[in-house]
């Protein structure tokens, strides 16, 4: 009898409790990047709270969000992964390219999917190699192409001889677009001028003096945290034309432009989702989450760029979980079933509208071969007097003729060094 009790206890201890759908949130609410980490984490958690409060979870199964503080530190991010994966984690969103890179082999070995939405290793788009890594709806190389496409549009399709500077965070994240921009420069004939900024980017005088001296026609920015605010302020100080200054989607939140005041007027940034809170879903968020006192934060971030992105990430995770439930016939899905759900995810405008988010994001479809979606992106612009962003383009395609081979090349190299046989 004693042996039987011990065996049952051991089995119970070894098995994860499967009463909830577990979505870990690797957040950073402290440290130098907290101002960006907080709204994203709030949006991510609030959406799941809404599903629990309004719908009773996903497919009738409550959602449990486990928050773990990383401080935007890759080692802590991995510690969080190790500490939470045993809870039955369905998908990880590290919100850090460095953490994503370290998580790729671990999550693949553990059979847990990772969604690095608009960040991480770009070639993870190739699902035949990166079986558990997803980066839909767009990746950095799409972003680089969107920026160049926009510059092409405003120059009548000819940018040969132009000089384009890339001010980038001197890290794995910041260096991601360089190869694509180099390839695109060969195609379009512009001169690329990379300008590195060391972490955290509090002091950028040298970089902006260089830009003032070299006078590039356009400046692209791959920044994060304080680097963005300082760069926009320095650009305003040297009177750089803000119309010609374009940031990646991680350099395009209210946090980035507000400190520079009127000087930031006209600054542009890329995006893969819409802006503001004028969507039916936000009425539900207000009613079931914020007004009910269940918001992850103070409720003051609702509708900001990074809150929307966190909410969008949670919504895509929830939709993938629903797809997984439909495919498997189980409400209480496993990480492997979640992975299959992500791989079969299709976001249509009809589905977005039904969720209360009409025109919020581009339509896209994920497949075994394509874990990166359609790679559509738009350009938005900051109006300092109104204190708001507005989309100035529709969602447009990136240059897959250039990006496709780069994805193939990089993912093939990863497959070779990791001993992976690509398969779908």
């Amino acid at each position, binding site marked *: 009898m004693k042996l039987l009790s011990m065996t049952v206890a051991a089995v119970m201890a070894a098995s994860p409790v499967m009463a909830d759908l577990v979505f870990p949130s690797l957040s950073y*609410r*402290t*440290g*130098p*990047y*907290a*101002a960006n980490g*907080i709204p994203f984490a709030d949006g991510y958690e609030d959406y799941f709270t809404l599903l629990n409060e309004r719908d009773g979870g996903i497919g009738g199964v409550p959602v449990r969000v486990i928050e773990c503080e990383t401080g935007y530190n890759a080692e802590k991010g991995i510690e969080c992964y190790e500490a939470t994966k045993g809870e039955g984690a369905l998908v990880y969103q590290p919100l850090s390219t460095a953490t994503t890179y370290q998580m790729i082999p671990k999550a693949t070995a553990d059979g847990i999917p990772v969604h690095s939405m608009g960040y991480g290793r770009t070639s993870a788009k190739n699902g035949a190699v990166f079986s558990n890594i997803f980066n839909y709806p767009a990746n950095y190389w799409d972003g680089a192409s969107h920026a160049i496409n926009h510059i092409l549009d405003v120059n009548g399709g000819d940018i040969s001889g132009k000089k384009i500077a890339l001010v980038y965070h*001197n890290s794995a994240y910041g260096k991601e677009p360089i190869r694509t921009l180099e390839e695109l420069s060969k195609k379009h004939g512009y001169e690329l001028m*990379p*300008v*590195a*900024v*060391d*972490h*955290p980017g*509090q*002091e950028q*005088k*040298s*970089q902006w*003096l*260089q830009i*003032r*001296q070299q006078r590039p026609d356009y400046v692209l920015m791959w920044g994060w*945290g*304080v680097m963005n*605010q*300082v760069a926009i*302020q320095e650009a*305003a*100080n*040297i*009177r750089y034309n803000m119309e010609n200054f374009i940031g990646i989607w991680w350099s395009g939140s209210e*946090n980035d432009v*507000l*400190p520079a*005041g009127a*000087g930031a007027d006209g600054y542009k940034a890329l995006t893969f989702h819409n802006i503001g809170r004028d969507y039916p879903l936000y009425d539900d968020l207000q009613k079931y989450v914020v007004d009910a006192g269940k918001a992850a934060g*103070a409720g*003051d971030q609702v509708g900001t760029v990074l809150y929307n992105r966190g909410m969008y990430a949670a919504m895509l995770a929830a939709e993938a979980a629903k797809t997984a439930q439909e495919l498997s016939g189980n409400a209480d899905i496993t990480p492997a079933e979640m992975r299959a759900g992500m791989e079969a995810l299709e976001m249509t405008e009809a589905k977005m509208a039904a969720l209360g988010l009409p025109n919020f994001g581009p339509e896209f479809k994920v497949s075994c071969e394509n874990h990166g979606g359609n790679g559509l992106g738009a350009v938005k612009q900051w109006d300092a007097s109104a204190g708001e962003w507005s989309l100035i383009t529709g969602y447009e395609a990136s240059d897959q003729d250039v990006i496709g081979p780069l994805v193939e090349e990089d993912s093939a190299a990863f497959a070779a060094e990791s001993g992976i046989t690509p398969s779908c």
Partner: protein
Amino acid sequence: MPDQLLFAMEVTLNGLMAGVLYALVALGFVLIFKASGIFNYAQGVMALFAALTLVGIMDGQVPFAHLINAVFGTDIHHFGWHVPALLAIFLTMVVMVALAWAVQRFIFRHLVNQEPILLFMATIGLAFVMEGVGDIMWGADIKKLDVGLPQGINEWIDITTFEAFGYGFFIDNLDISATIVAIILVAALIAFSQYTKQGRALRAVADDHQAALSVGISLNFIWILVWSIAGFVALVAGIMWGAKSGVQFSLSLIALKALPVLMLGGFTSIPGAIIGGLIIGVGEKLFEFLIGPMVGGATENWFAYVLALLFLVFRPQGLFGEKIIERV
């Protein structure tokens, strides 16, 4: 004049200005180390805390609002008033003096005569506590700081240099303000230490604690005084750096910019902090300008330490530090 030479001159001038900003941070370290032998790891966080408090007071933000609302079920965030910059600076100084008293009363008073490494550890703990308290007190969002300091290119320098060389130099008005403030601050600190009773007492404590005690100087008072002055220096640094990037938690990392300045200028010399700041500022900017493009850029963070290490090898006490004499 060749373009490259003009650019180098512009870079040098901007390096000097950046050096002043580094020196402003380093000054706080020097003051506390000189008076108490404590390497205050929390100096960067003090700058952050001071700037957060200043913006919070100016904007009429209710401190600990989230905590109050969570405990009492209220929904208060602002008092609804706006405090003028000068009054807000004064009120922030009151807070920094209170902080100095609390640090002395609750931490260092209990650690008198302990090993320097323990005192250093205590300041690490203090840094994290202050960062956490600052977060709970004022929130982690990025705040715009506007105390009326001009920002952007200085027109006069731009036009004058353009007329002289055919190329207008960029000098940020904020950097010019920082330089003027730093000059006034250093002059005031020197005047204070030379011509006031408290200043002389402070120097006496810095020279020899035991001797100072024996002539009736209160160590307790002096340490509160020096932490208060360091708090004021932190506030000035916080204003200058916060005006550049907004007040946010990465402001605490400006301490990293002060370390090579201290290694170079010495931990006990106010002129050393200034000269060290200028050398580091000019050195790192010129290196980035001349060598940076050949090695992929982003050299400033590490080159400042290379420069400081070189000085350490040949002059361990720094340029102006007290000579290390060990008697056997």
